[in-house]
């Protein structure tokens, strides 16, 4: 056998003689050390409970698992709690961040476009919630004929007449996201059509129509319900909404005028 000790019998027999005798423990030292050990043990029995390697390891694993679960539930809980947040809420940035993460994790252009459409719809819903929260002042409450009373002309869309700066900002954001989502959806639709996947293309077309209708209902992208006619395809699936200058956002001068009305100040 390789590296065998069998051929070293003489050396093995000589080993006890090679170790100096002075290294042995004297009986006095041995007794003294024994006494110290027994004293230490007696003290330890009172003060310390021995913990084994695996017990320590189990405790460590349990501690890490509990910490990880706590962190996970905190993150998941915050993300869940933020799902109903609207602009101005404390958790709204969390909601936006969660959406960004979801978008970055999207595996294909199609799923990304669908997600963008979903988030754009979210923005529209947020706009509705914001509008519902804003008290409508009596000065511009619509009269019996449906026209607002006061300084605002009857041609001004009602949604614009009571906008707070927060709403204006939310409207700009919603506009942008609806635009982006429609662009992405149209691009995906064109790709699907070129691939001959008409079934999926139809689904995307339905999604586009749905989003356009919802945006139109909130006077986004052109201010009317029929704004799908305002989009033009410029050759290679380019999508550019033709904005109506009057209705897209509230002009600062208009906003100032509105805020000067009694009961319309954002604070």
């Amino acid at each position, binding site marked *: 056998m*390789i*590296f*065998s*000790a069998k051929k*070293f019998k*003489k*050396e*093995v027999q*000589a*080993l*006890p*003689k*090679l*170790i*100096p005798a002075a*290294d*042995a*423990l004297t009986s006095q*030292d*041995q007794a003294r*050390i*024994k006494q*110290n*050990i*027994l004293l*230490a*043990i*007696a003290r*330890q*029995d009172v003060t*310390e409970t*021995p*913990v*084994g*390697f*695996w*017990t320590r390891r189990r405790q460590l694993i349990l501690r890490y698992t509990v910490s990880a679960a706590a962190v996970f539930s905190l993150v998941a809980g915050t993300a869940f709690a933020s799902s109903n947040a609207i602009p101005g809420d404390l958790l709204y940035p969390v909601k936006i961040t969660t959406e960004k993460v979801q978008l970055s994790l999207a595996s294909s252009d199609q799923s990304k476009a669908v997600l963008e459409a979903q988030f754009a719809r979210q923005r529209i819903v947020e706009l509705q919630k914001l509008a519902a929260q804003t008290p409508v002042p009596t000065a511009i409450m619509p009269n019996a004929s449906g026209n607002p009373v006061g300084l605002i002309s009857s041609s001004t869309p009602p949604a614009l007449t009571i906008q707070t700066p927060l709403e204006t900002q939310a409207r700009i954001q919603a506009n942008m996201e609806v635009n982006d989502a429609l662009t992405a959806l149209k691009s995906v639709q064109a790709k699907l059509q070129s691939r001959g996947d008409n079934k999926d293309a139809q689904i995307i077309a339905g999604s586009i129509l749905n989003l356009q209708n919802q945006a139109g209902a909130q006077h986004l992208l052109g201010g009317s319900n029929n704004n799908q006619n305002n989009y033009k395809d410029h050759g290679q699936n380019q999508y550019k909404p033709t904005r109506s200058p009057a209705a897209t956002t509230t002009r600062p001068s208009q906003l100032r005028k509105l805020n000067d009305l009694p009961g319309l100040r954002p604070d």
Partner: protein
Amino acid sequence: MDIDELVLQAKQGKAEAFGQLYDLFAQRIFKYIRIKIQDRQQAEDILQDIFIKAYKGLPVLRTDHLNFPAWLYKIAANTVNDHFRKTYRAPTVIGMDEEFDIAGNYSVEREIQSLSDGESMQKAFTQLPPLYKQVLELRFLQEFSLSEVAKILGKSNLAVRLIQFRALKKVRLILNNDL
């Protein structure tokens, strides 16, 4: 009373049984420590630590197929390594003038030559690498198997076999007065 019975009693907290285990192994463990620790006082402190650690470990020690001596030697090896780790992390400052005689004419060879044959062989043996001496001690004086020594030292069987082979070759040189 045999070792297993003593271990069982010590496991139940009987200090007297643990004392008997100490009496059985103290001398052997001390010799093993001295292979690596030159300072006698330090070696005694380490011996004490080893038995205290062993007592602390007894409650979680599995007694089925237990090899108590190997377990004790494993604790000894770990404690000696811990000692060197601590020493390495907190090196003491030694004055050059006190400890080193740089210009001195000390020579190990000359010193060995001045001793009797038996003494010179012992002296030469102490000059062997500590790992060689550990393996020789565990294998041929404490009569542990190769795999037990491998477990104690935290090495593979092959590595222990190789170290043992090289160590025995060195011992042959010592016996032939070639080292």
